[in-house]
């Protein structure tokens, strides 16, 4: 009987060794250890053994069963591992094939630029103010101290609806409307659409976008204006950006300045982009003209303020190196998708 058991062990060992797949292994298990398995059959025959023999043979039988079970288990693991490897290898992909991106839309590049500008000023405590695109001559010109014969009032510059109504040429009217409504301290920016009687070409558009800012409070100085715009320029164009104030003349402000930023393409070295000067024109600014404050019911003896305004289209074109403003209004999806 012992010999029979040993033989079974050897046979089982051989079959386990030869089994290449888990199904085959399972068959081997059933063959020896199953209910009708060969080892089971042998054990069933133990009843006929003597009381002395039984524990001895029983021990051998258990050893044989355990050894077969052990072998089965380790063989199973091996085969599983092999099978897994085979599956993984059969499932490998050409990972260099293109990905399937979910279609995500984009903000219009101009709006992206505008949003970026807005965020910078919001961070400096500015609120965003809005106003109508169709404006009165009063809010667009008179209240802003534009002389009656100022060329910007000409029909060749401004779109008129009638003697009293126009399409706003700047977002400054929003500032006047705000000053009329709110008491200082005021800190607002007014971004939005503006219109000028320009025939469209690569650098002109009858519709464009401005972002203007206004601060009115006690003790506001030109030095504060410089500080604020310096922070803005560094945020928008880069940490190393320098700015330069050139005295200028705008009806809305006195003193007035045009502000240049060191060229962000060449860091002020001079390149084709800044025409070798190292500077690019960025915005117009100045201290709010006392007439304007008075027009809005604010006492210029008590309060002072500064204002600034910039063309967003130009800044966005500069930043993205877009060479034709008309691209902004064509809305070719291949254009918008680039940003």
């Amino acid at each position, binding site marked *: 009987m012992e010999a029979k058991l040993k033989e079974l062990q050897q046979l089982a060992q051989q079959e386990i060794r030869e089994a290449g797949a888990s199904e085959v292994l399972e068959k081997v298990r059933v063959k020896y250890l199953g209910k009708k398995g060969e080892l089971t059959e042998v054990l069933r025959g133990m009843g006929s053994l003597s009381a002395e023999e039984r524990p001895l043979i029983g021990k051998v039988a258990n050893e044989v069963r355990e050894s077969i079970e052990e072998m089965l288990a380790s063989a199973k693991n091996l085969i599983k591992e092999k099978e897994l490897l085979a599956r993984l290898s059969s499932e490998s992909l050409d990972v260099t094939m293109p990905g399937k991106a979910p279609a995500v839309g984009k903000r219009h590049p101009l709006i992206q630029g505008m949003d970026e500008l807005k965020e910078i000023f919001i961070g400096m405590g500015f609120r965003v103010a809005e106003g109508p695109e169709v404006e009165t001559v009063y809010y667009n010109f008179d209240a802003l101290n534009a002389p009656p014969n100022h060329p910007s009032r000409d029909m060749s510059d401004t779109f008129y609806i009638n003697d009293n*109504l126009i399409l706003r040429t700047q977002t400054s009217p929003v500032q006047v409307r705000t000053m009329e409504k709110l008491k200082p301290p005021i800190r607002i920016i007014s971004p939005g659409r503006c219109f000028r009687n320009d025939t469209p070409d690569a650098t002109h558009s009858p519709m464009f976008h401005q972002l203007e800012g206004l601060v009115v409070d006690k003790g506001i100085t030109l030095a504060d204006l410089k500080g604020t715009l310096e922070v803005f320029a560094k945020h928008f164009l880069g940490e190393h950006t320098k700015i330069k104030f050139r005295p200028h003349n705008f009806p809305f402000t006195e003193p007035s300045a045009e502000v240049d930023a060191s060229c962000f393409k060449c860091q002020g070295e001079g390149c084709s982009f800044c025409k070798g000067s190292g500077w690019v024109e960025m915005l117009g600014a100045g201290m709010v003209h006392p007439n304007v404050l008075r027009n809005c019911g604010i006492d210029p003896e008590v309060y002072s303020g500064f204002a600034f305004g910039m063309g967003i289209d130009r800044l966005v074109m500069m930043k993205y190196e877009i060479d034709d403003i008309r691209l902004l209004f064509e809305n070719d999806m291949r254009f918008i998708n680039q940003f």
Partner: protein
Amino acid sequence: MLAPLSWLKEYVDINMAAIPFADKMTMSGSKVEGVEVLGEGISGIVIGKILSIEPHPNAEKLTIVKVDIGEKTLQIVTGAKNISVGDYVPVATDGAKLPGGVEILKGELRGEVSEGMLCSQEELGIAKNVIPEASKDGIWIINEALTLGADAVEALEAKDEIVEFEITSNRPDCLSMIGMAREAAATIGGQLKYPEISLKESDEAIDPSFKVTIEDHEGCRRYVAKVIKDVVIKPSPLWMQARLRKVGIRPINNIVDITNYVMHEYGQPLHAFDMDYIEGNQIIVRIASEDSFKTLDDVERKLNDSMTMIADGKKALAIAGVMGGAESEVTAKTTTILLESANFVGDRIRATSKKLALRTEASAKFEKGIDPNLAIVAANRACQLIELLGAGRVLKGVVDTYPVVKEERQFDVRPERVNALLGIELSNEEMINILATLEIKSEMVAGKIRATIPTFRDDLQQEADFIEEVGRIFGFDNIPATMMRGRVAVGGKTNGQMIEEKTKDNLNAMGFNEILTYSFVSPKSVDKIRVPEESIKRNFVRLLNPLGDETSVMRTSLLPNLLEVLSRNQSRKVEEVRAFEIGSIFIPKSAEAVDLPYEISNLVLGLYGDNEDFFTLKGAVEGLLNKLGISDYYFEAEKHHTTFHPGRCANVILNGHILGTVGEIHPLVMENFDLHKKCYCAELDYGRIVMHTRVDKLYKQLPKYPAITRDFAVVVRDTVFVKELEDIIKENGGDLLESYKLFDVYQGNQIAEGHKSIAYTLTYRHKDRTLTDEEVSKVHETIVAEINQKLGGALRE
């Protein structure tokens, strides 16, 4: 404005190169647009005198010229026609360099030695438009006996640096050499040297019976007249020609050149009349009474009574401040001149020039405003030059009609205000010194700076104006950069602005690109989207002066622009588009459009593509509204919106109002926009969306107990809307119904014609316990029974 550096240097010492000078001027407020270098790279050109001109033996069109260049005589073969023996000309010698790198070398021309080239003005880099008539089509004939062999570039003053300034409209006093020199002196530090004016004058005085009358005081403040006799018209000297050339003026003759010269030197336009043509021995400045007038450019100009004329006793002589008359023009035959140095009112000249569509250098200067005290200075300066150039005999005396003399004003400036506004700390003395550099005399009076304002500085009206002067001469660059003090403000966006961000975020997330289109459109745009005749959308806010019909009215719908964009993309073979725009539409408040129109914020969505249909767009609209916390809306079939397909269009209804319309674009509209792929668009009242947006959210407990799902399919007539079924489901589902989902709509085999099968999955759940089959069956069967009863829907087996 063009300012040759050499000319400026006559009035102020500029001890630096042009570029640093330009930078300094820019930083003090006179923006330099550019610096043009004249005569650079020219060498080897000398002054020569033509000794002989012989025909070329081998070429009919050429001649052989002998030229004396001082140390020797050159033989030059030339094709020039405008030369004569004795003429002084610029000669390019062997090895000479011309602008643009051209090199002249000794050579042979058709068998004859040529040792150089006679030069034209153009060849020496002079712009065509300033070359005098005599030298226009040939060699530069120099009308002065210069030293032979001298360097021509030097002798002809062809070398210079021309600084171009941009002058702001508040500083007309800078539109002259002296004005710019004054700014330069203030900027770089230095004393302004005015020309010393002294007149010899003839013993003969102006006829005492000659008189000047200003009738039109609104058009003319001052009229200075001088008389010059024995006038000899000839070319002006080279130095004057050179200066005029450099500021873009073509030399004509001595008298015209002198008036132009003084205009550029002082900024005061002058005019010379042929005195023999003046009748009645008088000048009257009056309103135009004639219908038309022939100006010296030989154009008959229509006049009206808003224009100021210079007239004599009988007729008009000139349009004041704009242009003289053809008849009274100074010609080669002129012997007596009336020199006018007048002050015309800017507004009058601007209006006249605009009406005539005639802008001259004089009118451009007058319309910006000129100091009337300048008139006499300029008149005397011109007469001094006439004497200097031997152009005529200046008669003694002047007729100066100046009814209201302009006096200097005084203004008190608070020095502490200057510092407070600029954010600096200058002493009173420093401020006074800065003002002094600008010829603003000032002194401390009772703690204030009392400034005496020169009559040429009308722009200085308020304290702020003085603050600017101090600031810019002190240098904006020297002002520190500080951060605002005072109360800390909280920045941010309004609720509406944040909802707009959220709207755009959600639309972007659903693949929609934002587009940006013009606020103005063509009035035909509403025809293209088939807006009915009586619609309010045909009531436009119209532009008086549009660029063209295409942009002549403010839009009343965003759809036309959107369709245009879809069409443009289709024609450019962009296969799929999802786009949106948020923008205003404009509806007049009153018929006369005196009030601001209503500006109503709209949202449009549009898409096309192979896998897109009505439901993609509807899903996007639902998705957006749901994300904005708007849920109590529904869609209702809309058959009459003429822009959309009548069977594929729905209104979105919210609180009983139409929020907007969603649909497939009508085939006729597609045709109008040249669209060939089906487009789906939505037009929504965005203001209303913002009004109903609820961004606050509350957490709802996740379910603890299992749900039971039941399906059913019913067959109904195909005219029944799914919404009708869903209304019944919602109404009868009670608290137990958690959700419902349409999962199949089927027509065809086994379904009777004119009918459709609709299948739903209903999910039931109780939040506190596990539901029993019986409970669910009761509700579910009620729903099915109601559908059966109300819609005739038979349960499908």
